[in-house]
């Protein structure tokens, strides 16, 4: 287990270095941020001074090496635009995004798995077909459009829910959260639903497919032959078997929900990292872009690791460490 963990994190470290290099190259190729940062009326001397101040006068590889040296000490550089550490900037915005993503995933999981089970157990019934039709809508309607329609209905016409911001927040362990106040929940409801919709549809389909396959298995028939109540046959025998693909997808989707909440955050003016990233890309604020991506990749690494551990808990046939542990 320990060797496995060390190896996993070693691999992740290589991924992080490689990815930061790609982003460096990418942003370097797009253009010169100095053009956007200095006053258009500034003279050549001032441009050179600004370029030198940001360290952009050095050769590319030297810039990257400087970044790596800083990163090793936990310093991912200062934002060109705000002149504060990029990491601080991101960590300030990250809780809002993570909160939004988690609430969205909770909605998707708590509705998606039960609805998928129902649709899988009664595939030909009216309700089973209805759930599937709904999930097709969830899949095919674009997020931004659904967001706009939600605002139209609930904010403009009905006036029930606010359309932007986080609302009232309270501090939990020094981190502001919205979901503990009524006002915060009202602000969360629409963006979280909007963000959850696609994942919800995905989970419904995944659960349904798994259920349909599992109910045909002999172990389900045997469980019924033992006289177990239906809820135990479904809730334990079927569910535990289909949970493995579901946990994988939840893990992957949790990462992507955090990383790509950008559209929803933009529509509902949710003060998270998505907005920050878009602004940083527009202003070629390389340290912030790089730091953002590193944070997101790290999140993916941690989530995938947790998913792997969950596998071994769910399925006794899975042993962590693969070939190495088998010897």
């Amino acid at each position, binding site marked *: 287990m320990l060797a496995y963990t060390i190896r996993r994190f070693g691999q992740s470290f290589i991924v992080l270095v490689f990815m930061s290099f790609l982003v460096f190259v990418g942003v370097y190729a797009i253009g010169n941020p100095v053009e956007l940062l200095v006053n258009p009326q500034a003279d050549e001397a001032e441009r050179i001074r600004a370029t030198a101040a940001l360290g952009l006068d050095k050769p590319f590889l030297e810039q990257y090496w400087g970044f790596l040296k800083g990163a090793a000490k936990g310093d991912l550089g200062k934002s060109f635009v705000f002149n504060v550490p990029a990491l601080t900037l991101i960590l300030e915005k990250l809780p809002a995004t993570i909160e939004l993503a988690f609430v969205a995933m909770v909605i998707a999981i708590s509705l998606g798995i039960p609805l998928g089970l129902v649709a899988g157990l009664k595939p030909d019934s009216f309700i089973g077909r209805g759930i599937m039709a709904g999930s097709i809508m969830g899949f095919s309607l674009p997020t931004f459009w659904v967001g706009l329609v939600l605002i139209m209905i609930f904010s403009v016409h009905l006036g029930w829910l606010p359309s932007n911001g986080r609302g009232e927040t309270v501090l939990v362990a020094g981190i502001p959260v919205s979901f503990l106040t009524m006002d915060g929940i009202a602000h969360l409801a629409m963006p979280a639903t909007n963000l959850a919709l696609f994942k919800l549809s995905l989970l419904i389909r995944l659960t349904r497919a798994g259920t349909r396959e599992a109910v045909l*298995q002999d172990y389900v*028939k*045997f469980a*019924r032959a033992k006289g*177990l109540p239906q809820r135990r046959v479904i809730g334990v025998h079927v569910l535990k078997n289909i949970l493995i693909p579901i946990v994988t997808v939840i893990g992957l989707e949790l990462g992507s929900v955090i990383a790509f909440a950008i559209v929803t955050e933009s529509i509902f003016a949710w003060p998270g990292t998505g907005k920050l990233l878009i602004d940083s890309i527009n202003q070629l604020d390389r340290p912030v872009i790089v730091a953002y991506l590193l944070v997101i990749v790290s999140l993916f690494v941690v989530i995938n690791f947790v998913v792997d551990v969950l596998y071994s808990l769910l399925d006794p*046939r899975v042993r962590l460490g693969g070939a190495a542990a088998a010897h």
Partner: protein
Amino acid sequence: MSGPPLLSVDGLRMHFFTKAGVVKAVDDVSFSVGRGRILGLVGESGSGKSMTGYSVMGLIDPPGRLVGGRIVFDGQDLTRLDASAWRRLRGNRIAMIFQDPMMTLNPVLRIDTQIVETIRAHADVSRESALARAREALARVGIPSPDERLRAYPHQFSGGMRQRVAIAIALVNHPDVIIADEPTTALDVTIQGQILFEMQKLCRETGAALIWITHDLSVIAGLADEVCVMYAGRVVESGTVAEVIERPLHPYTRGLIDSVPSRNERGRPLRQIPGMTPSLLELAPGCPFRERCARASAACAESPAVTEPAPGRRLRCFHPVDA
């Protein structure tokens, strides 16, 4: 045999109502079995023998449906029970063992969980006493160090051991009727022999009635007291094992017996029944075996009625084989 039989199935019909038409998987099947007795249900794949077993268990799923007949168990007609009353009988008073031990145990649950849940589904007992009974059940079917094995997962057992576990689960609530659906087909011959022997012994000891479903007449010959030969959803011949095997009356039974390899006929090509089992979908009336039967005549275009050529023997044929 004294008194009414423990389980008697009378004119059972179970049909599948598919889009392509009605499949008469079980079509007028009757048999009965008493305490401590072993009944063999023999037939080829698709003869309806497993579906008969599932019908008795109440495990028929749509589009399948019981359309007629009675299943009288211990004085009550199971076909009149509601779903929850039938559930309380399953695994408690009527148990079933399945064919493939690799598939019947849930791969992600420990053995103790799978046994304890069977006990606690039918009796309000503590987990500790259920565990003690689970341990006993494993020991009874010959699993060494049951304490250790209780905490194992199915993939840590061999095929034969898994089938023993499945049998232990089926027997744990001391059922009155056990339906065994080809439980030894997927096993080695040596393991098959052990399991057959032990099942026979357990039934004799506990007085449970055993219905053994198989395609293998030679298994039935050594195990069962009575046998029903099934073809295309019907019982074509039944009687005691000794009589049916020594003096088969139905041409199909005769064909089955002739297809069993025998030591006396070494080197000779095996005799086989020509043709295949007919599709049960919209099966034409008449004897379903007539297409493959050397003795068939014009009369066979009508369904033969059940006759009783000798006491305790039943037959569904116009042209029985001469003794």
